[in-house]
């Protein structure tokens, strides 16, 4: 049995690592994803998610609500993430959950303050564009409320989202007071999860809603289906976990993703974890790999995650979580 278990873990590890390599390979030969927005829907919301290739549909923390409302953490917690892309983009994401009876309730938001290119052909903005900035002040937001509960062994959850992009007209072009252009959409997520083999499988349908209008032009929202599996194991003094995910957009774009975590705790309640992951990115300017680390002390967790972009540029995320 112990041999069987080792064999099983070895197979899973091999599969997960293969998925990471495959994701990176696919990313290298990819076409850019069809344009969708608002931008805040396309960005990883937490340092951990960024580090594991955003393969978090079966993951579990407050931020899981960005991927799968069914994985809303059943323990009360709060997290806040600060992110920076290049010199001109800052992002803030926050998420919280608490349990009331059989129901777990949560809320989350992500706000991105960035500079958009002036020309209309560059909208919607891809994540990689944040590194180069632009001339127009812009702002993107997604905010949601979520609920989850367990029914007949299945964890089910739903979120209602509000998402918008707002682009301020460049005041140097127009002598009059600049007026912002806003495009907003109300969206719905539904998800489920269930134990599978030695881990958890998660399935989520995200961003169900109508296209939104910006300056009179309709833009698609990234309606997508995500299917993934995550598992955590012990290996001697270490904890390690695998996260896999395949995301399929309604417009046919498919993104595989996988991530790996290795943690070590030297005393009860304290741990350090390193992470790496890969996924097919929206554009070729965004590198497929991510990496990060975290430090946990009892109820406090600090996560750092990095994403990589062409020109040796990096986006940094720092998440503080309190449980």
């Amino acid at each position: 049995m112990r041999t069987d278990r080792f064999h099983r873990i070895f197979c899973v590890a091999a599969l997960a690592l293969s998925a990471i390599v495959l994701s990176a390979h696919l990313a290298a030969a990819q076409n850019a994803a069809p344009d969708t927005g608002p931008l805040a829907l396309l960005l990883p919301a937490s340092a951990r998610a960024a580090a594991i290739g955003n393969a978090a549909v079966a993951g579990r923390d407050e931020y899981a609500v960005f991927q799968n409302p069914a994985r809303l953490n059943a323990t009360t917690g709060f997290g806040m993430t600060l992110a920076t892309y290049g010199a001109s983009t800052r992002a803030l994401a926050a998420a919280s959950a608490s349990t009331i009876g059989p129901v777990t309730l949560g809320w989350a938001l992500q706000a991105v303050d960035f500079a958009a290119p002036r020309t209309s052909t560059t909208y919607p903005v891809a994540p990689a564009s944040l590194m180069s900035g632009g001339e127009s002040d812009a702002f993107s937001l997604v905010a949601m409320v979520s609920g989850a509960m367990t029914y007949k062994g299945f964890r089910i959850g739903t979120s209602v989202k509000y998402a918008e992009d707002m682009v301020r007209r460049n005041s140097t072009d127009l002598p009059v007071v600049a007026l912002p252009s806003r495009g907003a959409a109300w969206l719905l997520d539904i998800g489920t999860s269930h134990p599978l083999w030695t881990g958890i499988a998660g399935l989520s349908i995200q961003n169900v809603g109508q296209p939104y209008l910006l300056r009179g032009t309709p833009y698609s929202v990234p309606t997508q289906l995500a299917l993934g599996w995550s598992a955590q194991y012990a290996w001697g003094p270490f904890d390690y976990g695998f996260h896999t995910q395949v995301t399929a957009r309604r417009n046919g774009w498919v993104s595989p993703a996988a991530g790996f975590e290795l943690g070590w705790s030297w005393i009860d309640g304290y741990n350090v974890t390193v992470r790496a992951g890969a996924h097919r990115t929206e554009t070729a300017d965004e590198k497929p790999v991510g990496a990060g680390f975290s430090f946990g002390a009892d109820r406090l967790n600090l996560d750092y995650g990095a994403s990589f972009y062409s020109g040796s540029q990096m986006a940094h995320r720092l998440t503080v979580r309190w449980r």
Partner: protein
Amino acid sequence: MSMHLSWRTTIASLAVGLAVGLSLAACSQPLKFSKDDSATVLAFQTITAENPAEPGAFKVVRMFYGSGTDKQRKEFKDSVTYKTKAVDVSPYVTVPPTAAGDRKDFWGFDMKAVPLNARVWYPEGTGPFPLVLVVHGNHNAEDFSDPGYGYLGELLASRGFILASVDENFINGLSGENDGRAWLMLKHLEQWKRFNDSSAGPLSHKIDMDRIAVMGHSRGGEAAALAAAFNTLKFYPDDAKQKFKFNFHIRSVVAIAPVDGQYKPASKYTPLENVNYLLLHGSHDGDVSTAVGMRQYERLRFTDGQEHFKAMFFMYRANHGQWNSVWQNKDNGPRSGRSLELAALVPIEDQRQMGKLVISGFLEATLHGKSEYLPMFRDHRTAGHWFPKSMYTTRFMESGFRTLADYEDDIDVTTGASGVTIETDSLATWKENVIPFRGMGTDDQRNNAVWIGWNNRIAGPDTTKMGRPASYTLTIADSLVKSWNVTDKGVLHLSVAPTKDKPSPRALPKDTTKKSDSTKKADSLAATLKADSAKSAAKNPKKDEADTIPVDFTVELTDADGHTARMPISRYGAVRRPLDVHLYRRKGRDEQRFTNTFEYVPQSFLLPLADFAAASPEFRPERLKSIRLLFNKTFVGTIILDDVGITPSMSAKYMAAPLKP
């Protein structure tokens, strides 16, 4: 670029700074132990028999019996000497439906057809040899527990016992199943009867079915007691459709760090009668962290007029798992080192040596009839050289015990058993209560006792001024002593657990001008005490340091003619303050988890009445009238007192190898 560098630097500095700061703030606590007195306490060795922890003369033979089809263990598939039939344990064991499939896939069977597997160590010879079954407790079902008692098997078989370590791994990971564990032990005994009755096989007619012991560890410890209780029943208490027909001659039960009350027959804690009982528990048990086996110890009753005894050994710095060579020091699972302070534990070899010593000694005494080992259960100092270096709190009671006060019957603090009255003098604390466990919550020992606190110091600026020594006196009706036929072979029993409580000095007497004769006598004694106490106070100027001073007091017996005799309690054992236990590495974790960082384990003291008669020849034990605890040795302290009683005429074999410290 400079912006990137700055941002990176900021994040890295913040993360590293926080990590280092929090790591430092979360330092593990330093090792904390009670002062080790083992060099003094274990300095004696009055038992002259050979050490029962040493191998005996028999050549050891090993074998397996079982299904012959086991999917996971080759030894129970290919190497069984006897093939056994599967039994249906499902009336006693429930597997959650969500787990049933996986468990059946792994084991190849469900609860309706579980195997009777065991690994056996037996002596080469014609026998008949006493039979001992040992069963493990709950543990990772796939990390098989039954091989973990091989060290006991090798020892006991060499000393003329058959030891079978029963496989119950397949019910590990369930809950409320200890009745199933017990029932399986009895089904194994049925199997052993067949082995013995069979005309063929290596154990044919070599098994002494009149001398059986059942032993268990953790949940197995509760199961062992349950097996002894079920053994005499005709029906399963929770469903009389299940008939029992066992009635084996189970003479002895050994419980190693047992749980208690996980299964309650008919919703009652398991009653137990008329067996010898040995309980082992470690102070640093990271699994069964409260010594709940003491409840079973308390519940054991001797009602058949036969000779039995019960004993407990509470080993300081012993854990839960080191008595099983598979479990080792992983009381909290494979990552125990993260949470438990493993450096606080006694070496594995020492813990097993202690297990070998007391288990072998107990089985030699109760199954082989080797009474030369009985004194080590009365007072472990009689075998001080055999015990590994540690501190042991021990309990002992034999079937001749007659209760003077056990504090269970009523709420009147001035009465003991029928015919016994209680009075006190100058006590600061006098109350009866249930003895708590150290764990959080309301779980307690289900055993009441009396709290006696005193402070002989008189309040005021003169810290050497002492009053009359406080005392606690039990007066016994003449008729009771007469009906019990107390003799000079009698023994006084006291169970004492000092606490850390220190009452405040006494208020000044209201009138010091009129002195009665008794007060004059007391003043004289107080003057003697004053000098000792002054020395003690000078040595111990800080309040907390007084806690390390061992408690001592005088036991004064008076006969009906008014003749008194006194002995110090410390002559009959170590009267220790509670032993500090810090299980966890993280500072503050013990305080979060436990109400107290110690367990109250009352130490048994057996005081031969002959010693009093020798000290004061006029004193006549057969006319015993009163027992007075006179707190004239340690000027301040609090003790928990329980199980005050007398064995009117103690068998000499218990009192052999007397100690003269």
